[in-house]
């Protein structure tokens, strides 16, 4: 069964460093998302992406964040200068047709900022 994959599973970085989290969505899906979950808290929407552009973003997704689909398979989340409060689990998700279609989640990348 097709699934969303994410790499790495765990990333440790120093405050102020740039990180890139990678996701491979399900192959025939057209809509891509990033969510994050701070330890012990609820899952929060960051950004949605369709047709090579951001379709919606949350207040969390400030200028330090960017997303890209550099080729036909990968979808990346870049954090330009990490802060301690960026430590969280980051989930990628994809769906076939966006609105009103189920999103399928990847296994997550745990980001630890020291």
């Amino acid at each position, binding site marked *: 069964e097709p699934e969303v994959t994410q790499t790495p599973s765990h990333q440790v970085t120093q405050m102020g460093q740039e990180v890139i989290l990678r996701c491979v969505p399900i192959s025939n899906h057209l809509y891509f998302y990033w*969510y994050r979950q701070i330890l012990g808290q609820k*899952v929060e929407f960051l950004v949605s992406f369709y047709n090579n552009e951001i379709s919606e973003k949350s207040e969390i997704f400030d200028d330090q964040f960017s997303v890209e689909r550099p080729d036909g398979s990968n979808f990346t989340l870049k954090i330009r200068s990490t802060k301690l409060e960026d430590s969280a689990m980051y989930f990628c998700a994809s769906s076939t047709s966006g609105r009103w279609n189920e999103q399928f989640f990847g296994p997550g990348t745990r980001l630890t900022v020291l």
Partner: protein
Amino acid sequence: ELKVEQNPLFLSMQEGKNYTIYCNYSTTSDRLYWYRQDPGKSLESLFVLLSNGAVKQEGRLMASLDTKARLSTLHITAAVHDLSATYFCAVDTHTDKLIFGTGTRLQVFP
């Protein structure tokens, strides 16, 4: 802003007992999802509820949706230890994003 609240936040229950988790949301939506999350793991899709009155059952879990009341329930029947996890509801908004509830951490003990 859409708010999604679950209660209880924490539920400790004995094996064999029944209980219901409630998910209330603050705006109109016809779609709601229930997920299970084990510690340190991803979100496992349990139920997709697509319309008012929808009811779905899988094993010891049953989910329902009342869009008029803006309420979904996840009912646990005869709980077993394997059901111990955190359960999230998520509301499909009129945009692209899901808004997740606060989560209910379920612990089932013998």
